[in-house]
């Protein structure tokens, strides 16, 4: 069987070097489970999916809720992204939806996750992102789909830094860009 490699695996050393200064933490968090859920938020199926997740699907645009290790992020008025650890299974969600109108699709391979943490995380992202990243408007509990250095990303603010979900084919580009943007803070 072929060896499984994450999209930004080749950057592990350079991320570690850039993280040494303490100003910034760069790392890839590979192979997180990502499940795309689409359902009418007012339907009984949405309530059942919420019960299976342990938390109601957030209906307010740009919000994300947590249930244990799982994050449920708003993606659209009838669309959510469920992000969990590698072993998290989509099957219970599929069972909760049943054969009703909606979809539960494992999209884990679509994106990889980069962690941009540390005191300078916001400055680094602000070099290539037009939205307001200040914690007063974009802190934990928020989510945004936007452009970072012209690459489409999902940004999830954490207590310390941000998770940047980027398409696998853009991961190498974005990793290079992050290292370049971080130069002034880590050397």
């Amino acid at each position, binding site marked *: 069987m072929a060896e499984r490699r994450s999209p930004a695996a080749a950057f592990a050393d350079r991320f570690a070097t850039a993280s040494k200064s303490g100003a910034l933490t760069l790392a890839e968090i590979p192979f997180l489970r990502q499940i795309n859920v689409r359902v009418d938020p007012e339907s009984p199926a949405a309530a059942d999916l919420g019960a299976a997740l342990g938390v109601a699907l957030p209906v307010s645009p*740009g919000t994300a809720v947590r249930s244990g290790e799982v994050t449920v992020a708003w993606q659209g008025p009838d669309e959510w992204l469920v992000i969990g650890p590698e072993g998290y299974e989509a099957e219970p969600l599929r069972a909760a939806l049943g054969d009703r109108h909606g979809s539960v699709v494992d999209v884990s391979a679509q994106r990889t996750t980069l962690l941009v943490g540390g005191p300078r995380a916001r400055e680094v992202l602000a070099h290539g992102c037009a939205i307001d990243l200040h914690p007063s408007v974009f802190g934990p509990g928020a989510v945004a*789909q936007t452009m970072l250095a012209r690459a489409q990303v999902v940004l999830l603010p954490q207590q310390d830094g941000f998770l940047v979900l980027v398409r696998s084919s853009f991961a190498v580009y974005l990793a290079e860009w992050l290292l370049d943007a971080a130069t002034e803070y880590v050397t």
Partner: protein
Amino acid sequence: MLLIPCPWCGPRDEAEFHYGGQAHVAYPADPGALSDEEWARYLFFRDNPKGSFAERWSHSAGCRRWFNAVRDTATNEIHAVYRVGEPRPVTP
């Protein structure tokens, strides 16, 4: 660069959006009954006003939803945005 207020995500950079042309162009009730000229008129002829213009936009790099916006074609000012299916609001 325009700052376009997506009705779902709020104000975002123009680069996140995709333009969809004139809004409220109704599909003909009975396309088969149209003459070639009428069909061409439906397909290709659009208003080109100087001033307020209702347009379709898609927030393609964000929530990927289509919505309508009333934009002043002379000043680029966006007077209103509203979701698909909602009537065009009254704007100056």
